Every structure is written in C-alpha cells, then in structure tokens.
C-alpha cells in the first residue's frame, strides 16, 4: 500500500520478477516483486513452504534465482558471492562457531575483513555490551543458554555494521517468555541502530509485534504487503484474514453492489448481510465474509450494527476479562465471539439462541476459496 510511493533512493533491496524452482517443475517463488526500504523492519511471514526462506536465501546469496533480478543499493547482486554482499545474517540455530570463544565469534567478521587484533577485540566487546553480554566474552558457545547464544549471533551479525541484516526465524528455538523478551530487544536494537532488517518467521504474533511492514507469503506469492495494523484491520483476501489473527468466515454470494464500497451478500441460510466489498466487484460472485471475534456483538448492540443474525451457543469459555462464545451461525459451527465482561450481565447458556450483530464496516467481503476448499 505504501511502498510504490517511496522514492527510488530510499529502496535498499529490490526484487523484480524473481522466480525460483528447485526441480524445474514447481515454482517455490513465483514472480516476486518487492521493495525493501532503507532502515525498515520488514517481515516475510507465511506458513512453511510458502517461499519466504527461499527468498531470504536468494537475498543472502545461498540460492540463485532461476529468473529475475535482485538489486542491493541499486546494483544487481546476481554475480556477487555471499561474502561480498555485506549482509549480516542470524540463523535459527544461531550457528555460533563451537570451537571459538564468544569474543572470537563476534570478532570473526572483523577478522576476515583484515582488522587488526586489538581493534577487532575492542569492537567485539562493544558489540557484546550492546546485547548485554560483555562479561561472557571468554566463554564458549556451548556454555551459554539459548537466549544468550542468540544475542551473540545478533552481535556477530551487527558488529561489522552491515547495511542489511537478515534473520531466519531467529527466535524459533526459544521458549515463549524468552521469545517475547527477545522480540522487544531486537526491535529496540533496530530502532537504535537504524539498520535495515529482513526477518523471516511463521509466527504472526512475532511479525505483528516487531515489524514496520509485513509481506504475507503463501504458495510462492505475496498475498499482502502492509503494516501490522493494515494487515489486521484490513486484510485484502481470505488467506490473510485467516492467517493473521482470529477470524470468523461465512460463505455467501454477492447479491447487489451498493454505494460507498459496500455490498449486500446472501448467506447460505438465506439471510442477508451488508458488508464492505474488498475483492468482490459484481453481483453473483461467491464470497467469504470475514469478521474479527471482538467486532461481533451478542445481545448488546447499537444502531450501527446493521447486520443481525441468530446463533446457537455451543460452548462458553471464561477468560476473566472476556468470555469466548462458540456459536453455530449461518452454517459455520465455529463462529467465535469475544464477549467483554460486564457486571450484571448473564452469560448465555449452552444451547440458547442469541442475536449476533456487527457493523457493515467490520464485515469484509473477500475472495471465495477457489478450487482448494480444504
């Protein structure tokens, strides 16, 4: 949404028409066009096998694009070997060299660049203090915890001041608490150093927390490239709506296109809903409606919630500040609603029929699943 408007000098990496196949039959990456801006934190998000890691490896130089061009700072890097690209990289399993001390590990990029011993030692210590590990310089990687090892890997990728740092699921091996802590730490490092980061993950929470922009990959193509807010609030297609956060999907058919970008959709049970037309263009098209659980109201709605349906309560789960209701609505038995806690408000009983309401703006008419109805 925002990338095409940026001036060309601001673009650090440009993928144009990049395709990649390993076996000559199936394309792992199909026609990738992507501009990465200087200083931004861009995440490639997608399920495994969606082509995000392959794209990262092509940028790092470990895979060769079958077709198309990758430019780094305006120059094609087709014939530049990995060690001359000046790109720092952090791997999922850290890849710290086990036979070297922490300091030697961090100083390695400086050593291969011919910096003398004293200078590179000082610089390595400086980088280690940046990740708050200056006291552990003498240890070996095996003596460090997973989180510490990952910070060393970060320091090592940043110590030679690359213009671009790639991270391939760097937090995948850490437990949840440490992972959340490291997300914030990496984000702070990115902000204070101003370095460009391309980050690969399959964890959408991680992507939403850290990124300036997220490219959602599926089956070798980018389904949507947007800010975290844009992806969550305005998913452009059913895949993104389903992949990012929780979503309720209802199948239907467009009956009529209305003004102000709205449309009228007939559901499977014959009821009608007014929705924002996102990628439907004409009456008669099949569509999928998408609603966030927190945007749907049960028995507690105002005049703006123009869409009203009837649901049967299947399950209620108490979460303290809210209660999750699982309802059967218009043929979807997994329709989820987040009901905010209110004093003196009775919880619906299982089996009860309740009214479900939502605004037209909060209901997005997206593409219907094509051939793959899985």
């Amino acid at each position: 949404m925002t990338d095409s408007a940026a001036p060309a000098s601001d673009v650090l990496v440009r993928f144009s028409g990049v395709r990649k196949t390993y076996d000559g039959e199936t394309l792992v990456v199909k026609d990738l066009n992507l501009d990465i801006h200087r200083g931004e934190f861009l995440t490639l998000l997608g399920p495994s096998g969606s082509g995000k890691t392959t794209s990262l490896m092509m940028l790092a130089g470990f895979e060769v694009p079958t077709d198309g061009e990758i430019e780094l700072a305006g120059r094609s890097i087709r014939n530049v070997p990995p060690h001359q690209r000046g790109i720092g990289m952090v791997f999922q399993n850290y890849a710290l060299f086990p036979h070297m001390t922490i300091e030697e590990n961090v100083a390695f990029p400086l050593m291969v660049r011919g910096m003398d011993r004293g200078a590179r030692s000082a610089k390595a210590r400086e980088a280690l203090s940046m990740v708050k590990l200056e006291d552990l310089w003498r240890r070996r990687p095996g003596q460090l915890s997973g989180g510490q090892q990952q910070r060393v890997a970060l320091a090592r990728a940043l110590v030679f001041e690359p213009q671009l740092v790639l991270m391939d699921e760097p937090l995948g091996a850490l437990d949840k608490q440490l992972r959340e802590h490291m997300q914030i730490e990496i984000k702070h490092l990115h902000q204070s150093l101003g370095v460009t980061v391309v980050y690969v993950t399959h964890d959408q929470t991680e992507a939403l927390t850290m990124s300036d922009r997220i490219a959602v990959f599926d089956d070798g193509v980018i389904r949507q490239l947007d800010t975290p807010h844009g992806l969550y609030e305005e998913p452009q297609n059913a895949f993104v709506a389903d992949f990012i956060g929780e979503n309720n999907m209802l199948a239907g058919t467009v009956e009529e296109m209305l003004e102000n970008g709205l449309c009228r959709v007939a559901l499977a049970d014959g009821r009608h809903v007014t929705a924002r037309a996102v990628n439907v263009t004409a009456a008669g098209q099949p569509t999928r409606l998408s609603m966030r659980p927190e945007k749907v109201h049960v028995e507690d709605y105002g005049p703006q919630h123009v869409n009203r349906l009837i649901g049967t309560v299947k399950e209620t789960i108490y979460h303290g500040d809210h209660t999750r209701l699982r309802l059967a609505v218009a043929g979807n038995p997994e329709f989820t609603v987040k009901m905010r806690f209110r004093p003196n408000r009775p919880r619906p009983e299982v089996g009860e029929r309740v009214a479900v309401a939502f605004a037209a703006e909060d209901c997005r008419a997206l593409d219907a699943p094509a051939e793959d109805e899985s």
Partner: protein
Amino acid sequence: MSEQNHPLKARLRRAERMRQVKAFGLIAPLLGFLLISFVVPIASMMMRAVHDTELSSVWPEVTAAIPSWRDRKALPDEAVFAALAHDIKASHKDRTLSTAARRLNYDLRNGRSLVFSTARALPETAERWTDAVIAANGRWADPETWGAVYRASGPVTGFFLLAALDRNRTATGRIVVAPPDEALFLDVLKRTFVVGLAVTLICLALGYPVAYLLATLPPDRGNLLMILVLLPFWTSLLVRTAAWVVVLQEHGLVNNALIWLGIIEKPMRLIYNQVGVYVAMTHILLPFMILPLYSVMKAIPPTYVRAARSLGAAPATAFLRIYVPQTLPGIGAGGILVFIMAIGYYITPALVGGAGDQLISYFIAYYTSSSVNWGLASALGAVLLAATMILYAVYNRLVGAGGIKLG
C-alpha cells in the same frame, strides 16, 4: 517412621543390587574373554621381557653362587668356578647344556661354542677349579664372560629391554651402546614410526576429501559411495595384500600399462621396497581414516559455513577457519587409529616389502617363532607398547581425550 524407613532402604538396596548383578552378568562373558585372551597374555609377555630363569633352571649352583662376586673388575673366587664346573658337568650329562649355551649366546659372542668347548675340555676332578676352567677355555679369565653369566643368573633382568634398545651392560654394570654391527632395533623402531606416520598422513590427505564428499552428498548417492569405501572390508587382508603383488610386480598391471603408454621403457621397481609398503598399507588402512572423519563431518550442519560466508569469509577462509577445526576430533580419531594399526602391521610389509622395510612386528614374530628368544620378543613388544602409549599421552595432552570421536 524409622521402622518404616529401614525396610524401605533395604528394599531399595536389594533392588539396586539385583540390577547391578544383572548388568554385570551381561558383561561377564566379554570380561572373561578379554581377561583370558587379552590381559593375561599381554601381562605374561611383559613379564617375560624382564623375567629370566633359563640359565638358573639348568645351572642352579653357579647362578646361586655368583651374587657373591663383588669386584666385577676381577675374577670371581674359587667357589664360583667350582659351582660352574659342577653345573657344566651336570648339565652335560642331563643334555640340558644347549639351553645354557643358547642363553649365554644371546649376550656373548660365540657363547655357544664357549660353553660346549668348556664342557668337553673340563677334567673330572681338579685341584683348583679356577685353573681347570680357565685351562678348558681361556675366555673364562675375562671378567666380561662372567658378566654375561651374572646378567643371565635371573630371576629379574633388564638385559632384554636393553637389547631391544640396542644397549648392553658391561661386567661392571655400565650401560653402553651396542657396537654398530649389532645395533638393529632402534633403526627398526624409527622405521616403524616413520612408516606409521607417513601412512597416516597419506591416509588423511586421501581420505579427507572422500569423507567430505560422503558427508555432503544426498543420502542415496552417499550410501552407494559408502559401500565402495567399505568394500575392502569384505575381502581378507591377505587377499588384498596379495592383489597388490599382482598389480605392482615387475610385469604387473601398473608396469605393463606404463610401458604400453610409453611413459617408461623398463619396468619400475614398485614392490618389495618402500613404495610397495606405502601403497598396500595406505590402501588397507584408508577406511579407518574415512569412517571417523565421515561421522564427525556428518554431524556438522551446513549453516556454520553459510554463517561464515554471510559474515564475509571467502570460501577458502570459511573452510579452513570454520569447517576444518570442527573436524579435528575426526582427524584425531582417524589419525590415532591408523597410526596405531600401522605401527603394528606385520603381514603386509612382510609380503610387499623388501628385507630393509620390515617393521618391528616382523622382528617380534621372528624372535617368537623362529629363534625362540621369547625374552627379546617380549621386550620388543614392551618397547612398542611403551612408545605407543607415550605418543598417545602426548596426543592426549595436545588434543585432549574428548578430542577423539569414533562415532
């Protein structure tokens, strides 16, 4: 509480003991086998290297009397001469003289003829045995002759160990270097270690790239190549060595091919010399280098080299600074394995080497079976064992025992 605790503890102990007994039962057969077939023979061989009762078993009187000989620069006194004369006559009668003669012959030049001529010339009785014995053979007037008897009197002797290191003791107990025409074993020992080291280095140079290929190939092709590496194990060592004779002999495959190609005019000498020994031993020992290297390389994820490349290391730098150091445990294990096997090699050098290419095992076998000098054979074995252990200790200090990884 305590009444209840005690039976609980006792039960625990009994349960633990049962487990230990079971575990011991599982390893007991192997332990027994190792004890009988490995530890006991080695220990008894080591004993033989320093244990010497050959002379005292046939000449009991003189070996008992000779410790009274104090001034080694002079002759022993009459009692010792008398004991010698008595022993010689007794053993001559019992036909055990040759045992004594053989033992003295290890230490004395022409010791054998000395003993027999003395026995023949010795009178039945004598006024003074000192004169009679010296009259029978004048060499008894030399204290060095008596020194040999003294050194052979047992039961513990350093004679064989010294001999294995080309050293002698004089009558007065000084250790001297053997004369050059008798010195042999230090050269053999040196040759053994040089050949062992060279074969190890050749195996490393040839095996490292193969192991690298094996570890980086996709599994299906890797397995095929692995079978090729292991193929030699399916043939007997003797057959493989004999095959090298066929390949390398004067009119063998290599020479004929080279002549046919016009590279050489006359056949080269490729066998019954060092070339043959190196070629055959390297071929036989190569898998022992490749396998430990392969197992170590297989465990090194490719991300290390990738990380090094992304951090700015050229391919050669990444390989030498990141990959090779991580394969050191494999190099150490393969190297130690090949080296220790190489210095113990016997049959291959015996078949494809020349007279001057025999390793120490050949001499151990020779003294064990041909000349029945078990003392010297054991002493050579002990020297080989000691040298190996010293080298291993040095290696251990440099690399550390944790630096060895066999699988």
